[in-house]
C-alpha cells in the first residue's frame, strides 16, 4: 500500500469511529435522577464546628480524637481534602464578601449520578446504587487506583501507609445507616441543619425556594444540579462556587464521551462488522491487480514451457 493510500485508509477508519460514537451518543444514565436521595448543603448556615467530621469518623468506626478536640480552629489554616483518615472535611474561607463571618465549606464525595470512578473501575469494586450512594467493595478492588484519576472532585483516597492491605477510602453516604432507616451521620449531627437529607428532586425544589425567597442572599446556582449530569450532593452558597475551590464543570458527565465510544464501537456488533467489511472491500478492490500479475506470470511460464 502506498503512503497516500494509507492516509486514505486512516481517514476512513476515523470516520467509522466517529460514526460509532454517533451511534452511541444517546448515552443514558443508569439511574433515575428523580428517585435518588441526596443531601443539600447550605454554606450560609455552616458555622465550621466540624462536628460532621467527628460524626463521620464515629459512624465509620475510624480512629478519632474526642469531639471536644474539634473545637480547635487551627486546622483551618491549611486547605484540606477528604482522605483515607476522614471522608469529609470543612474548610474555612476568610474575607468573603457575602458574609460578615468566615465562610465554611464542607466537602465529601458528591455521589454523582454518572460517577466517573464507577466507569473507570475495571473490576466493579465501585458501584452506583439505584437510590444514590456510590459504594466501594474492598474485596473486589485490585488497587489500580483508576478511580482516583477519574474522579473530577479528587475524592477517592488510597491507604498508602498501609503496606499489606491498602484499600481505597471515600464517603459512602453512610449506606449502612441508610439501610436501617437512619440519615447520614454528618446530617444528623449538624447543629444548624446546614445539611438536609432527602430525595434529590425535593432538595432541588427546596434549594430553588431558598434562593427565590431570600433575594441577594444566595448566588443563583445549585452546584450539583447539572454539573456532570448531576450529583446527589447539592450545594447552595452566597459566594460563586469557583471561588470556593469547586471545579467549573460541563453539564455532561465525564463518562459520556468515553462510554459512548467504548459502548458504541461494539453496539450490535455493527461497527466491527462494518470495519471488517471495509477491510474486505479494500482487499477485494486491490486483489484483481495482483491476480492479473499472477496470471501474466503463470501464462509467461506456460509460454516458456
Amino acid at each position, binding site marked *: 500500500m502506498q503512503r497516500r493510500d494509507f492516509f486514505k485508509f486512516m481517514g476512513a477508519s476515523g470516520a467509522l469511529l466517529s460514526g460509532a460514537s454517533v451511534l452511541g451518543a444517546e448515552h443514558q444514565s443508569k439511574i433515575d435522577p428523580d428517585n435518588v436521595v441526596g443531601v443539600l448543603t447550605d454554606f450560609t448556615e455552616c458555622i465550621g464546628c466540624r462536628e460532621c467530621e467527628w460524626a463521620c469518623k464515629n459512624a465509620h468506626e475510624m480512629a478519632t480524637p474526642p469531639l471536644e478536640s474539634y473545637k480547635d480552629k487551627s486546622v483551618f489554616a491549611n486547605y484540606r481534602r477528604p482522605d483515607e483518615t476522614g471522608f469529609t472535611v470543612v474548610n474555612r474561607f476568610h474575607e468573603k464578601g457575602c458574609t*460578615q*463571618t468566615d465562610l465554611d465549606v464542607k466537602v465529601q464525595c458528591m455521589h454523582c449520578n454518572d460517577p466517573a470512578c464507577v466507569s473507570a473501575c475495571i473490576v466493579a469494586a465501585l458501584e452506583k446504587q439505584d437510590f444514590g450512594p456510590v459504594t466501594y467493595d474492598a474485596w473486589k478492588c485490585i488497587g489500580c487506583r483508576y478511580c482516583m484519576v477519574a474522579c473530577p472532585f479528587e475524592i477517592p483516597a488510597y491507604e498508602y501507609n498501609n503496606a499489606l492491605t491498602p484499600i481505597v477510602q471515600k464517603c459512602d453516604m453512610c449506606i449502612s445507616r441508610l439501610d436501617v432507616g437512619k440519615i447520614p451521620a454528618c446530617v444528623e449531627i*449538624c*447543629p*444548624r*441543619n446546614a445539611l*438536609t437529607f*432527602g430525595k434529590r428532586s*425535593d432538595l432541588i425544589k427546596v434549594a430553588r425556594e*431558598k434562593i427565590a425567597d431570600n433575594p441577594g442572599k444566595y448566588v443563583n446556582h445549585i452546584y450539583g444540579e447539572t454539573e456532570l449530569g448531576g450529583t446527589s450532593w447539592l450545594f447552595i452558597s452566597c459566594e460563586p462556587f469557583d471561588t470556593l475551590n469547586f471545579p467549573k464543570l460541563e453539564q455532561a458527565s465525564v463518562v459520556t464521551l468515553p462510554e459512548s465510544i467504548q459502548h458504541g464501537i461494539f453496539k450490535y456488533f455493527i461497527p466491527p462488522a462494518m470495519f471488517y467489511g471495509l477491510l474486505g472491500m479494500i482487499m477485494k478492490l486491490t486483489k484483481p491487480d495482483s491476480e492479473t500479475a499472477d496470471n501474466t506470470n503463470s501464462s509467461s511460464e506456460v509460454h516458456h514451457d
Partner: protein
Amino acid sequence: MKLLITLLIVGIASFSCEKEKIHSLPQDTLFVSTSDTANHVENMTEKAIDCNTCHTCEKPTAADPCLVDCPREKTWNVSAGSHLPGEGPEIVIIDQLEKLYQPVIFQHRFHSSMATMGVGCSACHHYSPEGKIPPCRDCHANETTATNLRQPSLKGAYHRQCLNCHREWSHDTDCDVCHLPLDPNSPRPATIDRTDIIGVDHPTIHIPEKQVFKTPEEKETVVTFHHQEHVELYKYRCVDCHWDENCSQCHDTLGKIKSFGDKLEAHHSPCTTCHNTVSEKTCGFCHQKQESKGFTHELTGWPMNRFHKKLTCASCHPQNQPLQRLNKTCTACHTNWYTGNFSHVVTGLTLSESHVELECTECHLEDNFAQPPQCETCHDGDVSYPDDLPGEKE
C-alpha cells in the same frame, strides 16, 4: 392506689425542686419543656380561634395534637407591635437536653430589648399567632420531616437563631458558650446578677448632630445628613433607618465593621424610604457644594408660631407620603374651629364681652388670619387695630 398518688406527688415535688435548685430565678421565668396546655383552651376561646383552625381531629391530646402542617398561614400573623419587649419572660430555660448538658439559660428580656434596635420580636418569633406566642417546639419537630424539608428541626431552629448573631458578634461557636457540662465540678452559671444590664433597655446611643459625607460626584460633592434633626424633629425611630443592622455591627469583638458595599443602591438605601434617590432631578436636595444648614421651617417661607412648633411633622403633613407644601389658610387644617369652641385667650388676647360672640370672619375677613383684623365691618372708622383692641392683651 394511695402509693401511686404519693409517688406521683413526690415525683412532681422533686421535679419542681430540681428546677428551683438551678438558681434563685426571677418570677417570670419560662421553662420551655413545661407544657402550657392547661390554659390553652381558655386562651384560644378568648381569641375566638376555632379548634379546627389548627387541629384536624376532634379531641386533640398533648400526645397526639393532630396539628395541620406548619406554618398555619391563616392563623399566623407576625404582630410585632402587639408584644412589647418588656412583656416577655425575663429568663427562658431551655432544658430539653437536661440529660446531656446543664439547661441553657436564655436571657430573654435582654435579647428582646436588643431586638428593638433591629426588626423587633419577629427577628426570632418569625411566626406568631394573635395572642400568646407559641414555643418553637410547636412547629419544629425533633427531626426534619420529609414532608417539610425546609423547616429545620428543633435543634436546627435553636442553633440558627442563636448562632446567627453570636457567630458574627463573638466569633465563638463552641458548644459551651451556651451548654455548660453536667459535671457538678465544672463551673455553674452564677446567680443572675440584677445589677447587670439584663432587662434594661439598650443604653442610650449617642446620636451625632450631623454627618458630612464626601461623595465622588463631580460638582456637588458634599452630603450633609442632619442626624439629630431626623430623630428629634422628624421623630424617626432608630429602626426606621437602621432596619438592616444587627448587634454585630457595633458589637463585633474582632472590631470588624461591615461596609455598605460599593453599589449606589447600598449607599442610598437608608434614605430611600423618604427621599427620592432614583430621579436625577432630586440629587441636589442632598448633594450640595458645601455643608447644608439644618432644616428650619422658615426656609419653606412659613415660619412656625409657638403653637405649631410643638407639633410633629406628621400632625400636618400626611404620613407615608413625601412632604408637600400645604395650604397656608388656617381653616384648611383647623376645620372645626368656630365661635363658641375656640378660646381666643390662647392668642394672648382675651376678647371683651361685646366681641366674644362675633363670628370669626367679622374681624378676620375671608378667613385670612395672617392679615391684621379689620374693624370696619361694625365700626365707622373711628377705631382700628392695633391701636384699639377688642379686649385685653395679656
